[in-house]
């Protein structure tokens, strides 16, 4: 196991992890008891679980990993109204960078995926944006200077 660290998770992230945990536990039970789990008939069953079903060690590893995440998880809370004008974890930030517009949500490392517009709060850009307000320019340097102009900050749907 990786050294214990806090996992900052959005509400959606927590729900997803809880659901996966419940589903995998049901699968493990079915694997060990030979019963067909109820979730098998559920339409929202993640099709990838189908590939896990015959691999008990994979299911167990993932269950342990999910337990570790849940144990060290910290829910990203919606900041108070007056603090919603500042970039914090969970903020959806519209920026102008190098003449282009982009939008990303600042999330914890576990949910980060820049290809899907989710930037880690521990990345240099994520770190630099934290604490700034709309209208401000944030410079990320070393070795090439880039300016991120914050156009809008939103806190919906976290």
């Amino acid at each position, binding site marked *: 196991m*990786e050294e214990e660290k806090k996992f900052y998770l959005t509400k959606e992230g927590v729900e997803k992890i809880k659901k996966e945990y419940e589903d995998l536990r049901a699968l493990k039970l079915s694997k060990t008891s030979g019963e067909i789990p109820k979730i098998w008939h559920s339409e929202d069953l993640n099709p990838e679980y189908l590939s896990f079903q015959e691999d008990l060690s994979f299911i167990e590893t993932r269950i342990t990993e999910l337990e570790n995440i849940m144990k060290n998880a910290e829910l990203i809370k919606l900041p108070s109204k007056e603090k919603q004008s500042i970039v914090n974890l969970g903020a959806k930030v519209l920026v102008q*960078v190098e003449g282009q517009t982009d939008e990303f949500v600042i999330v914890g490392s576990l949910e980060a995926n820049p290809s899907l517009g989710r930037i880690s709060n521990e990345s240099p850009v994520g770190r630099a944006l934290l604490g700034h307000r709309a209208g401000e320019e944030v410079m990320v340097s*070393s070795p090439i200077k880039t300016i991120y102009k914050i156009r809008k900050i939103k806190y919906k749907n976290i």
Partner: protein
Amino acid sequence: MKELLKFFIEVGKLKKMPRRGWVINQIKNPESIAEHIFRSALMGWILGEEKRGMNKEKILKIALVHDLCEVYAGDTTPYDSVLPKNKKALRVLMKTWPRFTDKEKKKKFQEKYRKETKALEKLTSKLPSHLKKEIRNLWLDYKKGLTPEGRFFQQADKMENFLQALEYWKKYKKPPLCPWWLWAREFFDDPLMLEFMELLDEEFHKK
């Protein structure tokens, strides 16, 4: 054994498949996908030694399988959907990092995932069931970051790519580095990789 031989022959094709990002950038004799796998595996393993509790065997296996699907799915880059035919326009495009809307990002991500899943399925379809499952689960670990090893290798894989970009830039003055640094500072967040990124800065820009 016959099926294993067929699998090895198919996988061997990666030794001759150039990485698409370098082809677009008109790099002479660009590295192959297999060459990228080789060094990313070394980087995952050796840098992983610095991380407490990491299963290095798992990192190595993830590294070995992470791009196998490209035998059939091919290599993709973020520029693919916006590539102009005109060479001058292409050179201009390569100086920027392509930005997309949320909807476009999601669509591109899902399309790539579907294509690669299908390709891996095809590549491993005749393998003994335990191998097929192991390869698929290791690949899923990499794609989805299911374990600390999978998440760490996601970063090691991209760090190898970044190092190669810097090496080509030093030798050929291309690809343009601005979009690479832009992307790197949004992508890397592992403390060890951030330290490594500073080393790259010193090695390629401050010497």
